[in-house]
């Protein structure tokens, strides 16, 4: 087995075993060996996490496995990030960036955690703003991380109003067109999403990924 294959295998194992330090070490080894970072990420990290995401979707593995593996991937990716960004074709290669949070006044964030794990496993860069997020913070972080997508969660029918408020704020600030806005949470449904002018509603984590993937395909076919 070649040295490169060996490193890819170590990277894959770090994801499957959900070991952050191993993922970082394997990523460093990939850099030291002069491997193509894009290729290393795809084979070493993206492939195993995708497999885990699909296995979770088929109800074959448990959620904590996916959450921990996604965290390991995030750790490994951060090592490779500078090299990735240095590549000219980096932007074209990546999937979207999502800024996600639970809206102001709502401190429930467990559903969001599931969504984040699924999105990461599907290859999205996810920035978690946490819970009880004031509206301006959504926009601030979305701008900082150059997000394509703003995802808002709300568990209560009182706090879901904040989803509407954020969209209104985006309109006022003239930034509505810059982001694809997706909403979710127990009281939220399709007609609410339409009413407040969100781009999409997702029932659960799987649907979030499906909706954003469909959007990606559309974007790339338009490009």
């Amino acid at each position: 087995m070649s040295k490169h294959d060996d490193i890819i295998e170590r990277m894959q194992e770090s994801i499957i075993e959900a070991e952050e330090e191993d993922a970082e070490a394997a990523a460093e080894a990939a850099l030291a060996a002069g491997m193509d970072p894009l290729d290393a990420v795809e084979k070493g990290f993206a492939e195993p996490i995708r497999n885990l995401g699909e296995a979770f979707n088929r109800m074959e593995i448990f959620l904590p496995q996916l959450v921990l593996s996604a965290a390991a991937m995030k750790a490994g990716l951060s090592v490779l990030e500078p090299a990735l960004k240095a590549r000219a074709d980096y932007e074209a290669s990546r999937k979207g960036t999502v800024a996600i949070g639970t809206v102001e006044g709502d401190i429930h964030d467990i559903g969001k955690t599931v969504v984040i794990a699924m999105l990461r496993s599907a290859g999205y860069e996810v920035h978690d703003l946490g819970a009880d997020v004031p509206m301006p913070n959504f926009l601030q972080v979305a701008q900082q991380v150059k997000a394509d997508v703003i995802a808002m969660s709300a568990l209560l029918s009182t706090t879901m109003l904040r989803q509407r408020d954020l969209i209104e704020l985006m309109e006022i600030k003239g930034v509505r067109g810059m982001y694809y806005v997706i909403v979710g949470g127990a009281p939220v449904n399709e007609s609410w999403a339409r009413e407040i002018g969100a781009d999409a509603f997702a029932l659960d984590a799987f649907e979030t990924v499906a909706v954003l993937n469909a959007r990606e395909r559309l974007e790339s076919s338009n490009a």
Partner: protein
Amino acid sequence: MSDNSPFKILTEDQIQSIHQTALGLLEEIGVLVKEPRARRYFKQAGAVVDEDNMRVRIQPDIVAEAIKQAPSRFTLHARKPDNTVEVDYRRLHIEPMIGRLNILDLDTGERRRTSITDVANLVRVADAMENYHLLHSGAIMPSIEGVSLHAAHVNGYLTSVRNTGKVVKASSRGRETAEDCIRMAAVVAGGEEALRQRPNVFTTVNPVAPLQHDQGLTEGLIEYASYGLPIDVTSEPQAGATAPVTLAGLLAQQTADVLSGITLAQLVNPGTPVWYGTCGAIMDMKLGAIALGAVEAGLINAASAQLAAHYNIPCRGTGAATESKLLDIQAGYEKAITLLMAALGGINCIFYPGVLEHALTISLESLVIDNEICGMALRALRGIEVNADTLAVPVIEAVGPGGNFLGQRHTLNFLQQEQFMPSLSNRQTREDWLSRAGGKSGWERAKDEVRRILAEHEPPPLDASVEAELERIVGEVEARQR
């Protein structure tokens, strides 16, 4: 715990161990308290309060004092005197669910949003059910289809008190919401002083697991406590998600959540009646979704009842929850098992009858079916009485070998106390069930019963002047600018 709570899941040592761990969590890690007034109460009592990160660390002696102040029994006065409830840490009462976002439509079987008419019907059915004592209500619903959002609580409350003579629960979601509900409850009670003397309303306050006290609900807690109105302080941990996956860890964390809330209530107004509350369940890790009908919820309830009994405080728990979307066999076994475990474990107020699918949906038929399960659980809890009369030696002697007991007065005399009389279950032979009962399933029979109640049952009417005043308050809240 109830007089007969035969299901003891924890030993005395284990109770101590969970209790000590909870005290340690409160002192070392503390709780996040978002409401500034609440932090001031804690600070005045000597707790260590970090204003920058809103963290409150509470020493064991502060908690111990609060536990001593919380009463072990209290009374909730119903509009219909027969329905007054003596809450006691040795008795069981049942609190069906009324207000949920969705309802399973009685006629179509489809899920849709719950309207104010549905609230009226749900409360009326619950009013007619003999095993329901304390009613959740439309006042708790954050939203009711067709009602303006900022007036859902007052409309929900009015519709609820109109349709029952039983004790109705109201909302603590935010200071103003709590004030509105308390104002209306005072009208029903006959004035503010009467409300303080004879509380006719109670509320739920949920610490958000792990170890957080939300701003709005904490404002509500302070309002209710300042009137001395009963509060169930109920943590909702999900094992593996918002609490450790190990049930022991969940119980310790939940106890810290609940005791910190109870402590706050006592700091606001010593002697405020409270329940130690659990809505503990697990996360289904293959889905990432809550499982309220899981057998582990039954274990958490039984253990919680023992912990609350350790504090001499009544315990509110859950039972009759299910993840099923229909009133099918899964609904039946999940409801029965969780309810029976909570009842036999010694929970004093069991919440949830009436719900389906993660408690997101309510059903009129489920209220009727669960009333039957509650009847069975209440019978189970009464246990078996053993004395000279029940040992029945003279009767056995009179019948002698080979006889039967049908003609004995003893049989007739003891029948109704010994046997639960089902009102929904069908025990006929197949032939009779087909020819005389239309061969209907339990769900269909429950639908018939709902229709009968809605056609026939008349709750005690509100006094006209009381009703007019309540309507005036609803109008006032609706007119508020938002």
